[in-house]
């Protein structure tokens, strides 16, 4: 039965159900067990995001706090994954990948290929991305394109509570390293989520909305931004088809191409900065594989090529919004040779 719960609760439920089902699943990260060694209440925090709250008491010994040593504990999660555990490590903010990137991209990502197919590294690295909380340049980036760039990593960007739960369970069961990117402004977003365990397969995009006029591919939180734009556009007679790729690696190319073959027009909405991001990647795919179907130039709606500014006045201009998406859709819809 589905109930309405938050993105945070959906993730917590996915972790709990998988820990219940499979003893080899462990959870680790800064304050994930609530703050080790502190004199007050146990499990006070559940990670800074509150996603792991309650797991510490339910699964004794399987929720570990860590010192602030990302290289060591993310690397430890990766090492443990090669030896029979299925660790879910929390790299609090995606920006902190800078501290531990070697363990992720030179170690975890490479093992299977480098070792001739002999390694399995079923680790999940949960991390929050995105702007909107006035958290400034080192706590707001949308860095999933960097992980997407690396062969050997799978990259998940869930766009709703329903997606978050199913994709998290799939991530834990998947036997490759998975970077699971949660948008920090979405933890309190609510939606219908089944109580029972379920998985959403990787590499299968979700067609969020059908429409014949323009294809809009949107990543993560940008899916809801695109939906907002679509509602407004519909009143002026433009029907948008919204595609949520769910995973940027693997990427469901087929669903995107099929949609563009029908609409002939593409807008990609990506919160990342504009160079070498998902917008350029998907645009290149479509330009190459569906060139003959295109009836207008492709539009990309992205952040500008700058760090994320602090001031609300600037951050609100930085983040792609429904107005910018609507403008891009109108410009491709109205384009004539």
């Amino acid at each position, binding site marked *: 039965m589905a109930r309405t719960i938050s993105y945070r609760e959906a993730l917590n439920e996915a972790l709990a159900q998988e820990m219940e089902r499979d003893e080899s699943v462990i959870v680790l990260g800064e304050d994930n067990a609530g703050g*080790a060694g502190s004199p007050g209440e146990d499990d*006070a925090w559940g990670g800074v995001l509150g996603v792991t709250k309650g797991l510490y008491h339910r699964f004794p010994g399987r929720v570990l706090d860590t*010192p*602030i040593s990302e290289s060591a504990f993310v690397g430890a999660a990766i090492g443990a994954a090669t030896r029979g555990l299925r660790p879910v490590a929390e790299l609090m903010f995606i*920006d902190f990948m800078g501290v531990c990137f070697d363990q992720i991209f030179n170690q975890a990502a490479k093992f299977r290929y480098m070792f001739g197919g002999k390694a399995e590294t079923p680790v999940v690295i949960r991390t929050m991305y995105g702007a909107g909380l006035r*958290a400034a340049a080192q706590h707001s980036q949308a860095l999933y394109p960097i992980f997407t760039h690396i062969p050997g990593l799978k990259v998940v960007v869930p766009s709703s509570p329903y997606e978050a739960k199913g994709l998290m369970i799939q991530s834990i069961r998947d036997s490759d390293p998975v970077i699971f990117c949660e948008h920090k402004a979405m933890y309190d977003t609510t939606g219908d989520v089944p109580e029972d365990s379920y998985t959403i397969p990787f590499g299968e995009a979700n067609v969020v909305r059908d429409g014949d006029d323009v294809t809009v591919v949107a990543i993560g939180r940008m899916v809801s931004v695109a939906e907002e734009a679509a509602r407004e556009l519909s009143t002026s007679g433009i029907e948008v088809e919204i595609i949520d790729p769910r995973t940027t690696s693997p990427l469901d190319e087929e669903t995107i191409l099929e949609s563009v073959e029908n609409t002939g027009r593409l807008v990609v909405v990506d919160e990342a900065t504009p160079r070498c991001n998902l917008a350029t990647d998907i645009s290149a795919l479509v330009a190459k594989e569906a060139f003959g179907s295109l009836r207008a130039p492709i539009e990309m709606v992205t952040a500008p090529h700058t760090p994320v500014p602090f001031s609300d006045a600037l951050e609100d201009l930085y983040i792609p919004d429904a107005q910018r998406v609507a403008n891009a859709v109108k410009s491709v819809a109205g384009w004539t040779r």
Partner: protein
Amino acid sequence: MTDTLSTAVSHELDENALLEAYRTMRTIRAFEERLHDEFATGEIPGFVHLYAGEEASATGVCAHLDGRDSIASTHRGHGHCIAKGVDVKAMMAEIYGKKTGSCHGKGGSMHIADLSKGMLGANGIVGGGPPLICGTALAAKQRGTGGVGVAFFGDGASNQGTTLESLNLASVWNLPAIFVAENNGYAEATSSSWSVAADNIADRAAGFGMPGVIVDGFDFFAVHEAAGEAVQRAREGGGPTLIEVKFTRYFGHFEGDQQTYRAKEVAEARAKLDCLKRFRARVTETGQVDAARLDAIDTQVADLIDAAVEEAKAAPKPTAADLETDVYVSY
């Protein structure tokens, strides 16, 4: 070797220096307590980490620094900024996200910086500062300025690879660097008695071939003396020092933190250990400073903070024209 300094004597500081130290500590305290109140009204955006309770560290260390010297700070950086001379009004405006702020509203609380003052910035990355200070110390050494670099970092940051690598590098290169580990008992909700495997952070100095010192962080004079020795050694080519400053943070990890993981140590620290109270008691008892002069500073500081908040609130925000500037020097 780790030494615990006994409570130090204050005779090296003349009246002006004492008044300056008091003004700095009072300014930090008033700045942070005001931010605590203003944050509660919902007007301040983003994450704000307050330094109240820890004033003696920034003040006692920075009292030895001048224009040749640089410091690197942390996410809890307001105190370090004030102690290194960053303009208080510009800091307040920055925290409010205003164009008149130290970083024109682009950085916010976690990134206040003033390179002209040798203040390399608060830092959103735990452990981000120590490597940079190896660099500023290297530059001072190569250029023969006599300057030193000071990295302030927390107990949590003391477990970061970047910090430990920097301690080693500073020794290997014999850099004029001082590493100030501010052990306030917690990294977020996690206790430093759990996360730091050694008994003391300063014990680690031995493994990196440098002196390690532990000081009572509520005692301005103890910090001042330990830092004075370390800065002098660094300036004279004697290499780096690790100073562990022990105290308690007065507020939550960030504003909004309910702090249920804590015991009741804050009330006790505020009542019995507080650096400002102890400083005042000491310098008035010894007759070095008249209490009325301290009271006058309290009033001046309160006025300054009032004006800073008022001006920050009234200041303009940056505009669309500012969004894409300052990414590069040239492009």
